[in-house]
């Protein structure tokens, strides 16, 4: 389905992707223009590492270019699913474990999560952006990804369920617990700041 934008009909992501599969460079440029920024922001917030996020964005596009399966019915959730899986692989990678002193014993089954940042460190962050990043890194990755996909990428909970492969009820639960935890961290931070002032 073509999308109307500013009175001009644009090709849908799915149409562009089919052209990309046919070797069309212009279509690839169109997809990159649409998804480079959003994916980079999602992965940077997800991992807290801009450089790694850039590598993962490139890997995401390489995966869609080398995919030989049936083209997806809905492109946007699909590309985020790939990006999210790459982020999961990153958290499981040896490089990440080395950087964060991640121990295999900390892995609770399949519950991959980034090593939480100490909440005290939030106070040391000067700008809001860095503070948001620190706050997000305090959350378990599964809760973080749901909040990011919901708040910044504006996916519905059903779409997030598709992207993450988790049941809708689980997605709701992760969103709820993630938000509650984030709120508690912020409140704790305010208390800490007050104590430091006195």
């Amino acid at each position, binding site marked *: 389905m073509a999308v109307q934008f500013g009175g001009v009909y644009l090709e849908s992501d799915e149409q562009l992707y089919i052209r*990309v*599969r*046919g*070797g*069309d*460079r212009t279509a*690839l*440029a169109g997809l*990159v*223009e649409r998804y*480079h*920024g959003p994916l*980079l*922001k999602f992965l*940077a*917030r997800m991992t807290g590492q801009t450089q790694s996020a*850039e590598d993962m*964005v*490139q890997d995401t*596009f*390489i995966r869609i*270019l*080398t995919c030989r399966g049936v083209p997806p019915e809905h492109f946007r959730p699909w590309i985020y699913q790939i990006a999210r899986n790459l982020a999961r692989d990153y958290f499981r990678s040896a490089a990440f474990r080395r950087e964060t002193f991640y121990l295999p014993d900390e892995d609770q089954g399949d519950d991959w999560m980034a090593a939480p940042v100490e909440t005290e460190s939030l106070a040391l962050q000067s700008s*809001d*952006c860095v*503070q*948001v*990043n620190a*706050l997000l890194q305090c959350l378990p990755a599964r809760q973080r990804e749901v*909040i990011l996909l*919901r*708040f*910044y990428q*504006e996916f*519905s*909970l059903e779409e997030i369920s598709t992207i993450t492969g988790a049941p809708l009820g689980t997605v*709701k639960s992760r*969103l*709820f617990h993630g*938000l*509650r935890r*984030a*709120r508690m961290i*912020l409140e704790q931070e305010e208390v800490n700041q007050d104590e430091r002032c006195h």
Partner: protein
Amino acid sequence: MKDAIDRLTDGLDETQRQALGDLSALAYLLESDVMPDPGQEDVARLLEALNPYLPVPNAPRPRPPSSWLHLIRSQFVLFESSFWLSGALVLLLGLFITTIDGQELLPLAFVLLSPLLSAAGVAYAFRPETRTLGELERLTATTTAELLYARLALVLAFNLLIALLLLFLIWLEGPQVLLWRLVLAWLGPMLALTGLALFTTVRWGSLVSSLLPFGLWGSMVLLGWREALLHHIASGMTATSWLLIEISRSTPVLIGSMLACLAGIGLLILSGRAASCERQSWN
């Protein structure tokens, strides 16, 4: 701010929303995080890195003539002796007719039987037994359409050979017919019936491809014979003579043959396209 909070909690139950309390500080903080979009240089760098992975367009590569011969030869094994024998039988029938009454019957038999032989050849070449291993075939460099045309070339070449031999016999007998018109009267139905047989085989299988062209041609022959029976007495000729003269001299027959030629070629092209898209194939 309300929008930002709604964006966070949209989809949660009312009890969950209440349990979360006031999220305005969190929503404010998250909204304040505005990351810059990648610059043009970053986009260009990414595109450059992706270029080697861009799929190569599926441009059709022309197959060299030697390769076509190789492919046709590989299809040779599919034609069992019955196929060659049936062609030889038609030729023998032609020779037999020549000995009885070559002047009239042979050209008529040639025009009536040759198209049927081609259509039967197509139905035989694409019979169900030859349609297996489609999945494997789709992985090979040879496309389904190429196989289709290779096999069709074998059928047509064999029929052309028989037709030329029969035409030679007709030429030896020297009846009162214009040879080029006779060729056209044969070529038109032959191409049309072959095209129809091939197209129906590709689309609906060999049963339809056997029934439809044969039924169509049979009806035309019957109608032609009926006309011959109605008119031959008035013209003072035998029915076969009248029919032969009609075939070789009538303008409507000439135009009809030319149109049949075009329709046949069109159907052959359509068959190739349909074969490229279909799930089954010919090994």
